[in-house]
């Protein structure tokens, strides 16, 4: 049997390039095609979600109502959050996983290539359903991306039902994607690629995929219960029948908190590849990085109620969740120190990927520290649902997750396209993004501490100056992202030829392959020393 398999697979892989025409993209089983589609899709969603953020910031530019109706403003905050979380950040990381994990572990493709394509193509279906709610009677979901009951069950618009099914499809897509990642990493590593030799991006994705499979079904469960409360007369989240709206929050955040780490752990892996490459030193504390990632993942299951300190939890629960949350700062701190130690006395150079990675370390720490402040239950009574929370999670998501993705794109773009990007433009993109995002989100700390609540279309006069600065920064950050689109298209079309290994300090199997990558790679597994 093995002889048959060998010849078949051999001419299969070596002879065939990509299929012609658009059906290549519809029917593909190639991890690079699918990875590229994920990245393109996530960038489209990033622009769409970003456009909604621009609407929000335009309305908040000045106090009073200028641009939109309050009801539409609520739809914008809701859709912005949902699209950015489920449409931009998560698919971008899955795209990077698809593209890079087989290259990093010496595998010919993902373990289950057809299912891989299905995971991707479910996303356009899900987001078509979700975005179409904007045009429905009663408008799009307007209850915030956390869709708390009873706001979403009793008081939500009719389109909530479409939103629920969209979430179901996203969940199916994520679970299948995660299963594929785990099966690939467990089963398709090249000979000699032991677990503790894997690049950290592979490690962080392995753990992320486990989190996805564990918590996406919980999200499916909670939206199903919503659906039944809306249409079938159940009382899961209605106290009049013995249920409890707080049950919704428990279930949602049991999904939601691991979800937060799903959106940051792969970025940790990316930064752990880039910082050593541009420090020309090996990563400091590889083993501790692996264990720290595992520790963060385990702890993420025991901290969910820190999102609910003001909902009326018993005192013991407040204390437990407060201390459990603070413990997460320990493994996260280990990581920060490891990155800094890697840079310490390295021969640093600051090309665009490194700029984003260093900004990641600094600004993610800012977001992490405001997270520790929020974890303190008595302090959270003041901060809860203010712009301080908005500032916190935008500091972990924008310079955290999104800068991580940007860094990865610049780092691997020469490998993907065979061309070097324009360094000058890349650096411009970085500095505009860096300044824009800090202008947008840093003042939110101040207005939040002063008591400005989140998700309101209007605010009192005393918050006017800071909000105007935020809006200017947000516009700057938003417009800058069109530059990224320009840079990427320009690099795909041409530019300086990239060598197989454009970064002299980079390590990993992907740099042994030519740039641009052939359509099929590692049809025969390499041997790792």
């Amino acid at each position: 049997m093995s002889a048959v398999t060998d010849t078949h697979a051999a001419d299969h892989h070596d002879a065939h390039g990509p299929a012609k025409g658009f059906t290549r993209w519809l029917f593909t089983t190639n991890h690079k095609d699918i990875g590229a589609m994920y990245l393109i899709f996530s960038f489209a969603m990033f622009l769409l979600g970003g456009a909604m953020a621009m609407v929000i910031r335009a309305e908040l530019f000045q106090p009073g109502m200028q641009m939109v109706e309050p009801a539409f403003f609520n739809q914008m905050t809701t859709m912005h959050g949902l699209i950015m979380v489920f449409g931009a950040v998560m698919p971008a990381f899955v795209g990077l996983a698809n593209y890079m994990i087989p290259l990093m572990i010496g595998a010919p493709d993902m373990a289950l290539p057809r299912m891989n394509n299905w995971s991707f193509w479910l996303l356009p279906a899900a987001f078509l359903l979700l975005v179409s709610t904007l045009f429905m009677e009663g408008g799009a979901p307007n209850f915030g991306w956390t869709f708390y009951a009873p706001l979403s069950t009793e008081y939500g618009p009719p389109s909530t039902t479409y939103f629920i099914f969209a979430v179901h499809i996203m969940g199916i897509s994520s679970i299948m994607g995660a299963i594929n990642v785990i099966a690939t990493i467990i089963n398709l590593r090249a000979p000699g690629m032991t677990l503790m030799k894997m690049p950290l991006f592979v490690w962080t994705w392995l753990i992320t995929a486990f989190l996805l499979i564990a918590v996406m079904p919980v999200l499916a469960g909670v939206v199903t219960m919503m659906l039944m409360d809306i249409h079938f007369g159940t009382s899961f989240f209605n106290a009049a029948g013995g249920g409890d709206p707080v049950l919704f929050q428990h279930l949602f955040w049991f999904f939601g908190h691991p979800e937060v780490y799903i959106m940051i752990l792969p970025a940790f892996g990316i930064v752990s590849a880039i910082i050593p490459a541009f420090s020309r030193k090996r990563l400091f504390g590889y083993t501790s990085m692996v264990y720290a990632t595992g520790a963060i993942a385990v702890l993420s299951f025991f901290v969910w109620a820190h999102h609910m300190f003001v909902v009326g939890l018993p005192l013991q629960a407040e204390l437990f969740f407060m201390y459990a949350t603070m413990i997460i700062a320990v493994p996260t701190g280990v990581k920060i120190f490891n990155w800094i130690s890697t840079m310490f006395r390295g021969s640093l150079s600051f090309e665009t990927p490194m700029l984003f990675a260093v900004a990641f370390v600094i600004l993610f720490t800012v977001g992490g520290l405001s997270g520790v402040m929020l974890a303190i239950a008595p302090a959270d009574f003041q901060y809860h649902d203010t712009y301080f929370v908005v500032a916190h999670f935008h500091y972990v998501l924008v310079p955290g997750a999104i800068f991580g993705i940007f860094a990865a794109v610049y780092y691997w773009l020469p490998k993907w396209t065979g061309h070097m990007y324009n360094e000058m433009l890349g650096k411009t993109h970085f500095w505009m993004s860096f300044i824009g995002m800090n202008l947008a989100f840093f003042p939110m700390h101040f207005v939040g501490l002063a008591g400005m609540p989140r998700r309101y279309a209007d605010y009192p006069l005393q918050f006017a100056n800071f909000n105007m600065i935020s809006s200017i920064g947000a516009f700057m950050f938003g417009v800058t992202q069109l530059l990224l689109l320009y840079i990427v298209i320009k690099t795909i079309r041409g530019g300086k030829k990239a060598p197989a290994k454009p970064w002299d300090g980079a390590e990993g199997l992907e740099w042994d392959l030519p740039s641009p990558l052939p359509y099929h790679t590692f049809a025969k597994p390499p041997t790792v020393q």
Partner: protein
Amino acid sequence: MSTDQSYYVPDQSKWPIVGSVGMFLMLGGLAAVMVNSAESDPTTTAWVVFTLGTLTMIYMITGWLRDVINESHAGLYDAQMDRSFRQGMGWFIFSEVAFFMALFGALFYVRFFAVPWLGGEGAKGSANMLWEGFEAQWPLINMPDPSQFRTPEYVFGPWGLALVNTALLVTSSITLTFSHHALKKDHRKPAILWLAATIALAVIFLGCQAYEYYEAYAHLNLTLESGIFGSMFFLMTGFHGIHVILGTIILAVLLGRLLKGHFTGEKHFGYEAGAWYWHFVDVVWIALFVVVYVL
């Protein structure tokens, strides 16, 4: 990690995109059915879309599995591919476990926190603020607000039909294991017979479940609308029931394949995956029996 073989990467396939279109039509149609009926709008178009989507999904699943079976018979799958399938099925079942854990967690929370607090227990007890005189008990057969939710007469005890159902499912797991052991020794006839017995037990279980639901609706006033006990009861047994239906379909397909001469004593992962799924469904029932009926 094999060194002498190449991993089989399938050629282009239309099934994923067919599946995505099918999923979009099916769930979009279903959403439209629900929204339109809630607003008393016509639902015909929505039903058509839903049906079209469902048929597309069936077309996709059968076509996709046919491709996989043909590839397996053509000898394209090596031991490494087999391990990928095992990983895939194993983690799929893990995701199902996570789904049911969420439901069990919800039941635990309702029973030990939400309802007692409604009854005034603890520092956060809210009975006197919301519904004066409401007394917490489990199963909840008195509503905090009886004007909104119907009150069930009483609920099922564990030692009637539920016990029978438990016996049925446990027996079905045993007969399935007999079938599997026979298949491993290439004794096809007993393998077929024991598998047929498993399916028969599954169908009887589904019949008993249907009868219990009928009783609940017709005589006990225990419905989806009768407060949190009814909600949790139907949510948990209902999702389990859907899984039993799916499992029964899987077992029936496996029986058909056995009759057609598929599977060997050595190579039968499709069969094993179905068996894993069935045992998982069985274990969930035992947990359901204990926490929903007995405790």
